[in-house]
């Protein structure tokens, strides 16, 4: 791909992000025009923008970036276009970690316990994936390992739900599991963004290794790439970014799956070239999705995680049908 068109792509993604961020502050059940933003004295709707929608927008950007990049990195590492933190069970393991803290009511005493538990869950998930797949990492092994993690964590979550001490705890867990950006505050922003930034920073260092992995593990090693370093940088990076995202928004699936796939025709299939565009693209998709669910004319707001799953599942199906030829 020529550098000019690459510049064009970045420009397009950045403009979309700016427009969507602006829209995300304005749009909702209550539309707040630009002139209401000046100060709380002039217009009380100021509070809606700066105390509700600003953190929501910032989280949308951060979580979208984290999920988009995690998807691109996992696809590069597994050499598999079906990989994403959701499909591979990393998000589900993070959710299990988070649910356990909700279940035991730890979050009331120590709010940081939730992100720590979610990141730990994600890290355990990625580590299990890498151990299960090992060096004979075929597409099928990875997907099966992901399926096992998904089953394991959903069993854990179901257990927590069925043993929950009271209906409110159940409600809280279920509500949170569906994945949403609604009613988030700056507390969540300050909790998640540093972890996500650190995770993304780690993942971005793996670009050259992911490129080399195009030639398989032996090929990459013959090019001087240390596989163990790549593996652990990637595991910790994905765990931090995806884990922190799940901690503040619950499970929002398919962003990591869809983003690199949509960008591949534009930037080419080289995994390293997909990383930065996937950060921007993931943020665009999550923001757009969040604005969309806010505007759906239903009594309660449709959960973002549910909407993404509804859009993502058919997408996954199409991808699978296309891949069937190559697997079979």
């Amino acid at each position: 791909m020529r550098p000019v068109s690459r510049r064009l792509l970045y420009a397009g993604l950045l403009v979309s992000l700016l427009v969507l961020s602006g829209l995300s502050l304005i749009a909702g059940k209550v539309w707040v025009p630009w002139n209401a933003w000046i100060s709380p004295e002039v217009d009380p709707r100021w509070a809606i923008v700066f105390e509700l929608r600003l953190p929501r927008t910032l989280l949308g950007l951060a979580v979208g970036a984290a999920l988009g990049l995690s998807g691109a990195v996992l696809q590069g590492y597994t050499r598999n276009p079906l990989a994403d933190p959701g499909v591979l069970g990393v998000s589900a393991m993070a959710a299990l970690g988070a649910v356990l803290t909700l279940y035991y009511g730890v979050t009331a005493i120590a709010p940081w316990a939730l992100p720590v538990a979610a990141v730990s869950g994600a890290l355990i998930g990625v580590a299990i994936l890498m151990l299960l797949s090992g060096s004979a990492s075929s597409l099928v092994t990875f997907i099966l390992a992901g399926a096992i993690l998904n089953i394991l964590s959903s069993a854990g979550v179901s257990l927590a739900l069925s043993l929950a001490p009271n209906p409110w705890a159940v409600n809280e867990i279920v509500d949170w599991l569906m994945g949403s950006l609604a009613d988030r505050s700056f507390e969540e922003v300050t909790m998640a963004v540093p972890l996500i930034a650190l995770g993304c920073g780690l993942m971005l260092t793996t670009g050259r290794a992911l490129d080399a992995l195009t030639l398989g593990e032996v090929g990459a090693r013959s090019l001087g790439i240390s596989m163990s370093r790549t593996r652990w940088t990637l595991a910790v990076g994905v765990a931090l970014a995806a884990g922190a995202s799940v901690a503040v928004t619950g499970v929002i699936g398919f962003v990591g799956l869809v983003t690199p796939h949509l960008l591949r025709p534009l930037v080419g299939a080289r995994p390293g070239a997909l990383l930065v565009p996937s950060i921007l693209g993931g943020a665009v998709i999550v923001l757009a999705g969040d604005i969309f669910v806010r505007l759906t004319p239903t009594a309660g707001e449709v959960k973002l995680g549910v909407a993404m799953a509804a859009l993502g599942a058919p997408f996954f199906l199409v991808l699978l049908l296309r891949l069937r030829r190559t697997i079979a």
Partner: protein
Amino acid sequence: MSVVSCTDLSVHMGGKGILAAVSLSIEAGRVTAIVGPNGAGKSTLLSCLAGLMEPSSGTAALDGVALSAIKPRDRARRLAFLPQTPEIAWAVDARTLIELGRTPFIGARGQTAQDRVVVDRAMAAANVSELGHRIVDTLSGGERARVLIARALAGEPEWLLADEPLTGLDPAHQLDAAALFRRLADDGIGVVLTLHDLSMALRLSDRIIVLADGDVLVDEPPATALSAEVLNRAYGIEATLTQGPGGPLIDVIRRT
């Protein structure tokens, strides 16, 4: 002159001995062929010499320095390896794939003009200059093999270790590849190949190492390496060495 060597190199896998105390030393500027029956340990030996497999005991070394003591990146700058069944995971274009050969040289600032010149040269050497924009999925087997050789040359290696690089190529492309390996060796690069085609080994190489049951059976120039007795012991075949119009020829008569 650069030397790749191994001393008492043994490899066991799953309780089975693959290589048993192999010691040899290979000089650059020559084509060295490693031949032997299936399961003799050719690929394992090549992987060890390339520093990609840790032997169970013994050492492999580059110019006297154990490969395990050389940083992977430094090793990769000097030594290129072509695996037997190369994986190409993504549908990238041929040039992007060949540029991967520059990986050990590329710093934080990415590709330089110098890198691009070297890639151009490697593509010309492997005769793939026109294929740069083609997506690798659309290449024929012969084109793909040449692109992968160009990938290896893009690192300007002192050594090229290739595991059965001629397998799957039609006779014309085999001749092309053989001529390229010859030219590289004449330019001072150390070329080490594992081969199944014994006649090709005789015509192409300066030295033939016959492996059998994880040990070196014969290590001699082609003129003397593949005697009827060696072929019988290594492969269990009755064969004669004849002189054809294109060069020496192994004529297999029957199994013994």
